[in-house]
Each structure stands twice: as C-alpha cells, then as structure tokens.
C-alpha cells in the first residue's frame, strides 16, 4: 500500500506517528495552517508558527524519510479579530516563496460570521494575486451546510480562481455534491467521532465517483487517527475494491491535485 496524507497537523503529533505513517506506506504529508487550540496573542505567534511549518517540521519529517509540505493562512477561528487577521495576512507573502509551501489554507469559515467572511475574501484575494492554490476548511457539525454554501459563493465570485485548483475539505453527505458541482475538489476527513467514518467515506466514493475526491486524517491535537487513510484502504478491500482502485483515491488523487504546484515532487 502507498498513500499520501494530504491534511495532517503534524506539529501536534509525535515522532511515533511519523514512524507509523511511513511504515504504513505514507509517501508525503501536507500540513495546512490551523488553530493551535488557543488564540495566539499576536502576529509574532503566527510568524513563529509559519517558520515552524516551513522550516522545522520539514526537517523533523525528513528524519523519517517523509516529504513534508504546508499551506499558510490565519484560520477562521481567529478571524473574528480583524486587526490581528490583517496583520497575519500581511506577513504571509514573505513565506510563499519557501520551497515546501503549496498554497493558501486552510482558510474558510467556523461560525459563519461577517468578519470570518471578510477574512476569507482577503485570503482568496491573496491567493489570486500570488497565483496560489487554495485549501478550504468547512465548518463543523450544524454550521457545515450553511458555511459550505457561503464559501462556495465567495470562491465562485472571483473569476481569477480556477475551480480545479481549490479543494473544499471536510465534506460529508450533505455537502459533497454541491462542491463537486462547482468543479472544485472535495476532501473527506476520517474522524472517529465527527465528519466521515471509513465506511461512509467509501459510500460517498461509490455514490459520487472518485474523480476529484481525496481522503485525509486531519490528525491534530484532538481525537483523530494518523493512520485513518491506510485503515480506510483496508476497509476498501473488505468492500471488494481492487488495489488499483484504492490507490487512485489514497495516492493518485492527492498526487494529481497537489502536483498542480510544481513544488510538489515526491
């Protein structure tokens, strides 16, 4: 088995996790910028975090032979503070030329507020100006349906953004179709208590096809499983999927999407 972990918050994980992922066939990991579990006190905290994502963490992953890439942004949970968000947005361009940066993400919405929307629009503007790919976080639980609609409206309204260079992550049964209909990619997150289980993720793939969908563990500091993608491949085998068909979803699709950025070489 081989796979790519296209969404893992490795700064929150241990070296044991790196070892287990590589042992299970992981060929690359991609880390979107996210909320630390607490609000940072200022822009300097983000500067340090971006240094960690673009410098320290790739070196840590390299010790296990694993290529590490990242996406940069201020996450929507901290976007209510417009002044802080603007300060963070102003330092992102300084990092975009670093060799492991794939684009802007994970941007999006959390509680679907006007301030979050403003900062989402600023991120989309930043991506368009610097010709960056986009990775989007959709809200949790009861906020996901409304948030996904609002996010899609913002991105579709900017004609400079090519839908094929955008992935809308954390889709579930009630949002996947509207995402795929826009021409954007969809990401399914495999969580034990929320988002998708392996069985449901396979249901979605069997219903909507695997043309523009990837799977990820989104492993972080919360309840999450770094090996969720390879475990879902095992579930695919139980469901009668061939190795080749599973490989398209676990490896081929994230490879195809992220290879649109020439920096993504593994």
């Amino acid at each position, binding site marked *: 088995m081989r796979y790519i972990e296209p969404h893992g918050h490795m700064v929150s994980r241990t070296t044991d996790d790196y070892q287990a992922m590589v042992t299970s066939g992981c060929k690359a990991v991609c880390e979107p910028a996210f909320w630390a579990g607490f609000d940072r006190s200022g822009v300097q905290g983000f500067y340090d975090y971006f240094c960690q994502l673009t410098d320290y963490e790739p070196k840590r992953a390299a010790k296990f032979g694993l290529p590490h890439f990242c996406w940069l942004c201020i996450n929507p949970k901290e976007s209510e503070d417009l002044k802080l968000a603007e300060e963070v947005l102003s330092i992102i361009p300084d990092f975009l030329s670093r060799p492991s940066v794939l684009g802007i993400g994970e941007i999006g919405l959390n509680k679907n507020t006007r301030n979050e929307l403003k900062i989402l629009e600023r991120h989309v503007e930043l991506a368009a100006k610097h010709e960056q790919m986009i990775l989007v976080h959709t809200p949790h*639980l*009861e906020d996901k*349906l409304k948030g996904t609609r609002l996010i899609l409206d913002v991105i579709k309204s900017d004609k400079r953004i090519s839908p094929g260079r955008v992935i809308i992550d954390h889709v579930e049964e009630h949002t996947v179709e509207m995402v795929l209909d826009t021409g954007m990619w969809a990401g399914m997150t495999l969580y034990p208590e929320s988002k998708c289980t392996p069985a449901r993720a396979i249901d979605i793939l069997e219903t909507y096809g695997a043309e523009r969908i990837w799977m990820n563990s989104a492993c972080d500091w919360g309840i999450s499983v770094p090996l969720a993608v390879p475990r879902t491949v095992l579930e695919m085998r139980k469901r009668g999927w061939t190795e080749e068909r599973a490989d398209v979803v676990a490896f081929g699709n994230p490879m195809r999407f992220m290879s649109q950025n020439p920096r993504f070489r593994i």
Partner: protein
Amino acid sequence: MTRNELLDLYFMDARAKLIDLAAFLDRVDRGPGEADFRLAAFRKALKELAGEKPTRARDVLASLSDPTTEPAEKAPGKGAIGAWKQ
C-alpha cells in the same frame, strides 16, 4: 457488493449502534430536569431513518444543520454543538 454481502459486513456493527441509540434515549429520559433543544433535534433527525430513499445520511445531517443563509453578526463562541438552535 450485494445487499446480503453488505449485511454480512455491517449488520452487527449497525445493530450495536442501534442499541446504543436506544440506550442513549432511555438514559436521557431517566435523567431529571428538562432537556434542551438538542433532544428535540435528535428526535426530529431520527425520523429521517424511516425514509424510503437511500439518502438518509444526507437527510439526517441536513436535519441537524443551520438552514439559514445570512452570515452571523458575531460568533457566539468557537465550538459547534451538533444541532442547530432556532
């Protein structure tokens, strides 16, 4: 996979989850005090399981979702609860 093959693979797991749901509702009923909006939302979503179309997962998720379209003026907090409070 055929229906029976899927039953072979998932029936016991689904059966366990079904009993867990029943036990959860019994547990809440035995508890003292008034239940907040989540119990009503849960019971409403449960009705989607009796639907005839194979879109029950989507319909349950939609039932628990915020159906409004206008952005909120301010975030009430950072977390989500799992059901929409009218």
